[in-house]
């Protein structure tokens, strides 16, 4: 659009054009004039704001306040191993609010680890002669390599003795890593994974549970102390899974991870007497590895009995 100016004397057509522009200019100026008057009469709106109130009501006298002095929190004496994942324990969810923390002794057997502390399953250069896998009849498992067992179902005992360094057990709920000088029973039956650490001291047995019910954000990586049993289940764990009628005596059970994980202490001594595979093993007359396994377990049973005591162990019948 172009608003043109006209100059000189107007011809009839120019005169029409001039009138047209005169009308346009009048319109523009009238709109401007009307706009200015409208602006003068307009009121910008303001959003609501709180208060001020009219005459204040007489304030009822509040009851004399009991002045709350924030409690001086006594230093919390933590047990040697604390499990931050124990969210079912209200005392641990917010330890500040409740000074008297009660922690189940069963939790001493399990410790949460960062995922990075779980050993990588890359090719391990090691002597695999001292990795032993024993299984009960009917167990389904494969051995992808000399130090890894892929357990589908059944019950196995895995033993790693020096100079072998590490062995892995892949289960439907995750992977277990057994370092040197550890023996563990691993069973997977009816959607229940059971791991019993017979003599792997320190952090010898680690479990990374990241499959099945543990897939997703809740994928704990834990280490299991010797003399403790870890039970993981697809459904919520009940007493039947926690204390099976296998003759092995247990105490101090604790359910974790929304009921899908549990830990309890068991008597290695009673396992030596009642676990079918171990009983079979003890009756064998030959085999260096087997004898070494039994010897180590027996010693550990004695050590644990001495350290933790034997009171409170019981078995469901």
């Amino acid at each position, binding site marked *: 659009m172009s608003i043109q100016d006209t100059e000189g004397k107007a011809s009839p057509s120019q005169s029409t054009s001039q009138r047209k522009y005169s009308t346009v200019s009048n319109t*523009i100026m009238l709109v401007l004039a009307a706009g200015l008057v409208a602006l003068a009469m307009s009121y910008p709106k303001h959003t*609501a704001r709180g208060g001020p109130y009219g005459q204040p009501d007489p304030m009822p006298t509040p009851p004399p306040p009991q002045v709350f002095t924030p409690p001086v929190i006594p230093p919390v004496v933590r047990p040697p191993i604390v499990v931050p994942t124990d969210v079912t324990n209200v005392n641990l969810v917010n330890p500040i609010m409740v000074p008297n923390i009660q922690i189940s002794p069963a939790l001493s057997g399990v410790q949460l680890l960062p995922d990075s502390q779980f050993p990588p399953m890359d090719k391990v250069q090691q002597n695999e002669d001292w990795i032993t896998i024993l299984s009960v009849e009917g167990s389904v498992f494969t051995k992808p390599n000399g130090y890894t067992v892929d357990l589908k179902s059944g019950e196995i005992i895995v033993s790693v003795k020096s100079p072998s360094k590490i062995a892995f057990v892949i289960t439907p709920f995750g992977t277990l890593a057994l370092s040197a000088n550890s023996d563990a029973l691993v069973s997977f039956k009816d959607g229940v994974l059971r791991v019993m650490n017979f003599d792997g001291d320190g952090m010898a047995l680690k479990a990374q549970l990241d499959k099945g019910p543990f897939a997703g954000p809740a994928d704990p990586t834990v280490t299991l102390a010797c003399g403790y049993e870890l039970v993981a289940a697809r459904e919520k764990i009940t007493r039947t899974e926690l204390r099976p009628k296998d003759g092995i005596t247990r105490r101090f059970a604790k359910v974790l991870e*929304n009921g899908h994980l549990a830990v309890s202490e068991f008597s290695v001594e009673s396992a030596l007497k009642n676990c079918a595979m171990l009983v079979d093993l003890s009756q064998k007359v030959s085999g260096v590895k087997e004898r070494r396994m039994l010897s180590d377990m027996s010693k550990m049973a004695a050590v644990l009995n001495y350290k933790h005591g034997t009171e409170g162990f019981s078995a469901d019948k």
Partner: protein
Amino acid sequence: MPISKGLAAFLCLTALLLLGFGNTLTPYFHCDDFLHTAYLYRVFHSDFWLLATNFFSSWLQDRSFYNFFRPLTELSLALDYSLYEGQARGYHLTNLLLHLLNCLLVFKLSTALAARYQLSPGKSCLLNAFFASALFAVLGSHSEAVAWILSRSDLICTVFYLTSLLCFLKSESAGSHKQLFKVLAGAAFSLALMAKEMAVSLPFTITLLSLTRPAQKQKQSPVWKTILPYFLLLGFYLIWRSLSIGTIYGSYSGSLGEIMRASMWERWFLSAELLRFFHPFNIDLIDEGSPLRSVLRLVLAGCGLLVLLIQLSVRNPGYEKQLSSRARLIFTLLAFILLAALPSLQILGVTANMTGGRIAYLPSVPAVMALSFAVLLPQATTRSASLLRLAGILLLTLLTAINTVTVRINNMAWQAAGERIETIGKDLQVQTKALREGQKLVIFNLPDQYQGAHCFTTRGTLEGLLKPPLQENDLNAQIEALDFQPLYSGFISYHDYSLARSRPDRYKVLYFDADDAAFRPPPLPVYNQDCQATIIPAGASDKVYKADSFYKRSRTYRYTIAPPVTPEQFQILEVDCRHEAKDTVRAAERSYIFVDWKQPHPPGNSARTTKPTRRPYIELSKALKQRLYLPVSGYKDWQLTPCIDSLYLTITEVEEKEAAPPKLRLLKEAQVAPIITNTAFSNMEMKRSSTEALEISYDISGMKDFYQGQGDQPDLFLEIGKPYCYSYHYERRPQDSTPLKAPLLVQKLMPADKGSFKLSASQFNEEGCYQVRLLLKNQEKVLGMASQPLFITVKP
């Protein structure tokens, strides 16, 4: 133009400017200024080349809530830093000089345009130009643009924008220097673009000027040839900027950008914010009954009538031609206003405190020129014309005087805010020195704005205040501010607050008392946890709640609480409402419920002067019967009220028919929403380099009563949004069915009363702040929501 008159005009403008803006030399830094002082300290002390990266990346390399490209502005700030370092006065002086330069450019541009449109060659147009520049010098809406250091982007952009226009006009007439002026116009346009994005309108303004040029100038080169170089420059700039900031759009980003985009129509047109530019009064300093407002109305009406009178009364053929030229010029200027304003309309709104007024800085140039040319006849040879001209001079003088007074008062907000911020900086320095070893200072209730002047809006703005060059040592490690999550809001996290209060050995908690501008310890909590409070309606109390003129109708109910409650006891107010929302056409008139309570004077302070600015509110849907949940505990004012014995509930824009007062009930947060129980403050932080996962615990055991009887067992979902995008996080509403836009992660969690989940840094591709939401859902219905910010950093 004789030199003496030019000099006189310059001196008058300088005097006027000092009269209006002299008080902007004293304030301290404000808000985003602190991001720049901290940044420039880094530039001058460790990495000088960081400054150059502004030409190839986002401004300050920050894409959090802003994504701008303004390297020239940063260069000017760097120049100031090299001269003044942490002395705010120097920066304000530069702003004032830039504003003076703009006033002179307005003067020059007015005379150039008057000559171009042949209004009246000679002396009389000088007066139009003078009034245009004088009005521009003291316009009431310029307070933010001149008094806030960081608004310099507007000032610099306007300097080069107007220079480019002047050079363009010169290039039309200058004989031998034609090409030189064309090059200068292009260069000035480029520099304007480097200062602020709003200069993109310049090629369109030049197109407009080319299309409306007088007849004899139309014989010159065709329009397309004239405008082509500007559009080529614009195209080059857009490509460069897009490559630098990673998007063609930029501007405010994240949730802040989304809020602004979503409400553009509502802000400008439905709520009539545009009108505030013509009534530029800060409502906190100039109230609605002020005589200034009335005088301005009278003057505006007078201007309108004078324009009408000029157009109708002058019948002299010589004048008709002059008036026709004038109308063409005014049409051009009105279109120029629109073009100059369009790029900024999406960016901001203007509040009743004139916050956001800076976006009117450039558009006000054509506005003041149009007013000056419309009201003041350029030439008068008859007696009646002389009278009209005299009336014009009188009205423009009055308008300039009103604006001078207005802007001086408006500037006081920036002055007061600056003093307040400086006091905060000094107080925090003293408070940190008094901390015991291992103790941290936890502060809240910092001002985000004071009477419309920006104070602290993001965590970075406070961090800048606590760093060199404004402090000797970096105090940030010793101070935790609860106000930013991550933007400022009326809320603090109740969890954070109670955590800090429960550990006086580790945290010293202080709040900023707005009344006496000092830090004070919050009121001692009253131990009364097991009390069951009953809220009894105490009758309607019409007109006690001042809802201002925004809502046409509102109804207020008063309740008493027996026994009185303490802020720690309850977190949620349940409103069982049977009111029907009005089916309004105007979105700005939605129905809301506001909650208020009496706030006694803080101890040691005899009179409460500041008004409560934020109160819990919730939108009323059209459903007849609804149960609404207002999270009251996070409101800072709620926490600062030692004992609450009465409540006021105001419902706006409801149907006229009478209804019983809504039933109210106070609840614990755990009863209606999942609780995220962390061990640290709610601004969770995780380093990207870290291999460790962050474990977040939750608890929904308290909600059993709430969801039982509402169908099947509900599912719990974890949602993580895009960086810096927050959906209803700041409102903290326990029920919100709005889904996240393009969430980064949606994960169904194991159904359990209590549980935890882990987040590892590797799940996040980029650093930033993410919203973590926990939603308890039954089918698609959201039963309860918890929201928490999570910072992913790349710090080593």
